């Protein structure tokens, strides 16, 4: 098990955005979190990645050595260093920097040289820097963004920006990747390409993927398991088939006929 949340609750003043959420994600799985708008999906993500500290409950992460670490309330940067990377619902690229720089920056967290040796370009920093450039080049070639490496991130077409955001997260060498609505605003063809891309990175980079998504074709096609959230509470959990036939999920999405 790579990630485990234990009864995490998030309250904003009097509003409970997420209530006693329990999620278990096994190594190598693709797990989706779905639910109507405002169900608390992104809040759940923010609690896992340290943007919010849960009002109650704990988040546990198992690192590569198999040690279970309590990551509740840690800084987002420390959580990223442990191997959890994420993307954002509204694209957050470093807009004025090039595609190459965007990916290169994501290598910074593994830098061991202190800032003085980096500034003075001392040999051990130069070695690390070379490695960072090699990693970036390799990654960009593998995911097909090499041709646009010198473009400004904001000048890429929308679909490519989404892809770049995922690639940037990959550059931090994560074991667990959190995707917040990766297909938001995409047409069916782009969604199909994205599905294939997520499959590809899941296979090639030995990842566990946890994602929020509204496109049901994508979710049903690639998820191993699905959690359904409504008003901050888990209403269902299971394989895509189970979820599709779950009456509570259907009610949550389609509404209940009050006369019935």
């Amino acid at each position, binding site marked *: 098990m790579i990630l485990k949340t234990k009864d995490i609750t998030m309250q904003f003043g009097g509003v409970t955005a997420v209530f006693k959420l329990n999620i278990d994600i096994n190594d190598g799985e693709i797990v989706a979190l779905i639910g109507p708008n405002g169900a608390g999906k992104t809040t759940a993500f923010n609690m896992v990645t340290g943007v919010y500290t849960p009002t109650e409950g704990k988040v546990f992460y198992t690192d590569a050595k198999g040690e279970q670490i309590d990551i509740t309330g840690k800084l987002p940067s420390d959580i990223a260093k442990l191997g959890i990377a994420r993307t954002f619902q509204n694209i957050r690229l470093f807009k004025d920097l090039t595609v190459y720089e965007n990916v290169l920056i994501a290598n*910074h967290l*593994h830098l061991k040289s202190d800032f003085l040796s980096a500034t003075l370009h001392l040999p051990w920093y130069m070695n690390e820097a070379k490695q960072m450039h090699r990693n970036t080049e390799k990654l960009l070639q593998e995911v097909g963004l090499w041709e646009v490496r010198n473009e400004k991130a904001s000048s890429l077409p929308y679909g490519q920006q989404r892809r770049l955001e995922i690639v940037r997260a990959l550059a931090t060498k994560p074991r667990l990747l959190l995707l917040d609505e990766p297909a938001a605003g995409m047409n069916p063809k782009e969604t199909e390409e994205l599905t294939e891309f997520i499959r590809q990175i899941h296979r090639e980079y030995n990842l566990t993927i946890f994602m929020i998504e509204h496109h049901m074709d994508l979710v049903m096609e690639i998820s191993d398991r699905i959690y359904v959230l409504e008003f901050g509470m888990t209403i269902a959990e299971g394989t895509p088939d189970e979820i599709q036939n779950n009456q509570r999920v259907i009610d949550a999405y389609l509404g209940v006929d009050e006369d019935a």
Partner: protein
Amino acid sequence: MKKRDMILTIIGIIALFGLAFFVQEEMDSYIRRIVNLCLVYAIIGLSMNLTNGFVGQFSLGQAGFMAIGAYTVGIFTVPVEYRENIFYAMPMNPAIADIELPLWAALILGGALAALFAFAIGTPVLRLRGDYLAVTTLGFSEIIRIWITNAQSITNGALGIKDIPPLNDVRYIFLVTVICFVFITLLVNSSYGRAFKAIREDEIAAEAMGINLFWHKNLAFMVSAFFAGIGGGLYGALLGTVDPKNFLFTLTYNFLLIIVLGGMGSITGSMLGAVIVTAGLEYLRFFDEPLMLFGMDIPLFRPGFRMVIFSVLLMVCVLFWRHGIMGTREFTWQKAIDFVKNPLGFIKRKGAAQ
């Protein structure tokens, strides 16, 4: 390519060094003074550009850090035998009364003290963003000045320190400027510099990419304060006297003007901005003189009028030319060579790109 640029840069620096020698030997003291001021302002402008332009944190504390540097130079380089005369109102604190340092040591000490102070205030202050950060840093810069005014046994209070061995050596200041520029250029081009830019572009994303916001902001703030301290030290040595009133918060706006005009996030822009602002302030002095035209006294030409002109310039710059001269671009040899080879084509291509 990289090698060629490196060689050209070294040749450029040597050529400028030659120019510094020429200015030192051949030019009158007025020109020397302007050149020195340009260089000192460039150092401080660049230090401010590091936090404001590269890390994107709107900090207005530069005058305070300068004051720390300038006073360190003032206190420790004044010859011991003059001190009794200078500190006539209240004798100097015996702990430091006999310490005299060479200028370079005092500069480094001043920079280090400024950096230390930046670290101390950075811890709470850098949690703020935008305007709030600006107001707080401005406040701390005033606190430094007021502390200096009141710590009479150390700083001689409102009387200031005079008889600092004057520094009017263009070569010395030029050397310090080169060191500062090379250091910050290297820093900005290192992985840490890229992390700074990431913070400027998007703090939340930078943090999610494993960049510790607090530590990186504090680091940039300290480096910035260090060089502002050095610049302030040179400023004090250049004037030969330091006085708390030199370091009013309005001084910071000179540097703000420099980096806005030169380009937030551009190293060469800071240099350019410093030269334009400093030389501009000097050569616009005729606006301060009363002007008689056809026997009429033109009413606006009074002392201080050039500051009005400068304010208008700044406003025009902010309104119509927000990215300044350089934006976040840098001077590169490739661009210079393209320009020399084909000036018209270069301008055309640049126009098309925009």
